[in-house]
């Protein structure tokens, strides 16, 4: 048991750090505007040019076959450098694991390289109106037609969908089945879908509603076998809760920023104590992750523990920043006095979604109790 990086790991870190120091752009406009989306797509392309967009993927799809530890190092450096949020996140972190596990070689060859270099940006289409955290209550349906399927229904909370190219999600292909039976996992282009942006707390439009009215999807855009959608999706959402959704690097970066902010403001000791505690919790998340990765554990339901931990830590860190900043902290980017261009406020509003999405924390706690601790349903 040690915490010393190997020579190779240190070299990789040095390379990433050096490249980022040279290339990280000044703050990009929000990716939830047309211009910001384009700027972020451009950044994805630059990352891909340095083979840094998908470091853990095999070389043939644009990666470096990096180990999990190296991926964690990449993430630490990425967020510490203040690099832009990842536009390609849905595809790279949520869809790709399912594609690697269940896709055909043809599908992998077709979708992965374009995902890696930002040519295809993916939106997720998990939620439906009224369903919330209850992912199995899918009402959108897929109708069998010659050579493929026609998709009907409505999806909501589809992140990035306002400007994305493709989406992935579950549709009920067996009308007689209920709950998690008879669902199929589809990949479909968004150009034939009616996409309506949802205005959020922070005034941005990161999510959208999708209306599908008989969109045709050929058979080669079904992931896995028809009817197997739930099993495949579960593997995906488990990674959504786990490592791939939120690597420690971004919380470490936030914690470091918070501590630096606190030092400039000489906070009262009660605030200082909570800030020190938050910094240590980010450290705990990092150590926990190193431990889990080294032990080679398949996280499974234990991923729920991480999800509760990071999502509440993230809210806490941003709350502390706003408490440090007082009235000024509540100003947004348009205000002349806004500290850090309103980044803390924006981050706070964003963090509030953490305990809600990818399964509310109430649901996560129930999963932990039942599947990790073995308490009765």
């Amino acid at each position, binding site marked *: 048991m040690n915490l010393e990086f190997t020579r190779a790991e240190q070299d990789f870190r040095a390379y990433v750090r050096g490249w980022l120091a040279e290339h990280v752009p000044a703050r990009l406009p929000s990716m939830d505007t047309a211009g910001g989306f384009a700027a972020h797509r451009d950044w994805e392309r630059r990352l891909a040019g340095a083979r840094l967009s998908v470091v853990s993927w095999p070389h043939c799809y644009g990666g470096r076959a990096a180990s999990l530890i190296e991926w964690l190092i990449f993430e630490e450096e990425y967020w510490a450098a203040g690099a832009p949020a990842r536009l390609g996140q849905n595809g790279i972190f949520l869809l790709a694991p399912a594609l690697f596990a269940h896709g055909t070689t043809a599908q992998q060859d077709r979708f992965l390289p374009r995902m890696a270099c930002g040519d295809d940006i993916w939106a997720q289409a998990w*939620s439906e109106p*009224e*369903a*919330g*955290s*209850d992912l199995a209550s899918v009402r959108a349906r897929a109708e069998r037609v010659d050579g493929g399927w026609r998709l009907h229904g409505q999806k*909501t*909370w589809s992140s990035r969908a306002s400007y994305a190219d493709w989406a992935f999600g579950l549709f009920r292909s067996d009308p007689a089945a209920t709950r998690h039976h008879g669902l199929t996992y589809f990949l479909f282009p968004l150009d034939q879908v009616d996409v309506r942006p*949802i*205005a*959020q*707390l922070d*005034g941005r439009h990161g999510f959208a509603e999708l209306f599908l009215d008989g969109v045709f999807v050929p058979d080669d855009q079904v992931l896995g076998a028809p009817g197997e959608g739930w099993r495949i999706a579960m593997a995906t959402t488990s990674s959504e809760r786990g490592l791939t959704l939120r690597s420690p690097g971004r919380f470490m970066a936030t914690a470091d920023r918070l501590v630096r902010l606190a030092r400039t403001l000489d*906070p*009262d000791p*009660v*605030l200082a104590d909570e800030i020190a505690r938050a910094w240590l919790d980010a450290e705990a998340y990092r150590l926990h992750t190193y431990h889990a990765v080294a032990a080679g554990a398949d996280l499974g339901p234990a991923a729920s523990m991480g999800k509760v931990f990071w999502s509440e830590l993230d809210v806490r860190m941003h709350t502390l920043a*706003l*408490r440090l900043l*007082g*009235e*000024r*902290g*509540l*100003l*947004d980017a*348009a*205000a*002349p*006095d*806004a500290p850090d261009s309103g980044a803390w*406020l924006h981050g706070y*509003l964003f963090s*509030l*979604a953490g*305990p*809600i*999405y990818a399964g*509310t*924390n*109430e649901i996560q*706690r*129930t999963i932990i109790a039942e599947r990790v601790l073995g308490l009765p349903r």
Partner: protein
Amino acid sequence: MDFAFTDDQLVLGSTVRQVLAEHCPARAVREAGRTGERLPGWPQLARIGMFGMLVAERHDGLGLRLADTILAFEEAGRAALPGPVVETAVIAPGLLPDDLQDRLVKGSLRVSVRLGDQVYAPDADLADLLIVEHDGAIHVLSSDEVRLTPQPGVDPVRRLFSVAAKASRGDSSRGDGVRSRAQAVPVLRAATVAVAAQLIGLARHLLEASVAHAKTRTQFGAPIGSFQAVKHQLADVAIAIDFAAPHVYAAAVAISDGQGETDNLRAAKAAGEADILRAVSAAKAAAGEAAALAARAALQVHGAIGYTEELDLRLWLARVWSLTSAYGDTALHRARLRAAILGDPELRRHP
């Protein structure tokens, strides 16, 4: 000892509630944050005397004490009433010169303020007069004597502004408007308590909205309000509100004991200065924390849908955030309480 509201006090609260239910519904608040009417309900509130409540009777006001009116501010919070209500109804009567008081009573004067711990003047673009602190004195300036810089933030309704006096104005265009900083102290305390009452009202609304949502929204085949996790979260909000509100009412009483026509007589009996300071900070801190808890729970219970601008929830959350940091944020008041309680050698609650 009778620490219950009198019938008059209850009637004032319910009257304000009715007026706002009719003339300042959620729709009106939402519009105020966009391009619609910025001051919904104000003419009707003026008609029932809301802005003359604390003006002395000799100026044709109602001459009430803060405790008499505290439920009116709670109701203003519950409705998320737009506009500089505390500044106009609480601060202005205490700091404006006599010849302006009658306009306050009529509701024809709106006032914004940048005093004490404030950095920005709220709703200053809606104000006819600004009361600002400068070089240790309090100045009353008319809106054409100042330059306002918008400082937009999380609350689209309660807008903040930087205030600078225009170069052209004389040192004090209203000489009789200059008051000392000391005169502002009791007035700012009263404003702090009134804002605490607004936070209680906001919290009550958020709890009611969360309960209503939890009763109707179903997940996994049952209303989410039937799940223990949701029940206990909302029970904790109810407890927090229930034990924060008495701090607010007690602070209003403590301030009121030093208020009113018979100042000298009452002051002799009044709670000591230290007790008032402690009560004011306790009110603001407790109300702020209860409202923050109500806001977090409301967002969690509403789930993703609470995160949209389409839901009015958003306006109440923003108001909780903006009022929690107004007139001294929770950390400031907690620090004062720490000093007051651990430093006070004569800590007794009753004579």
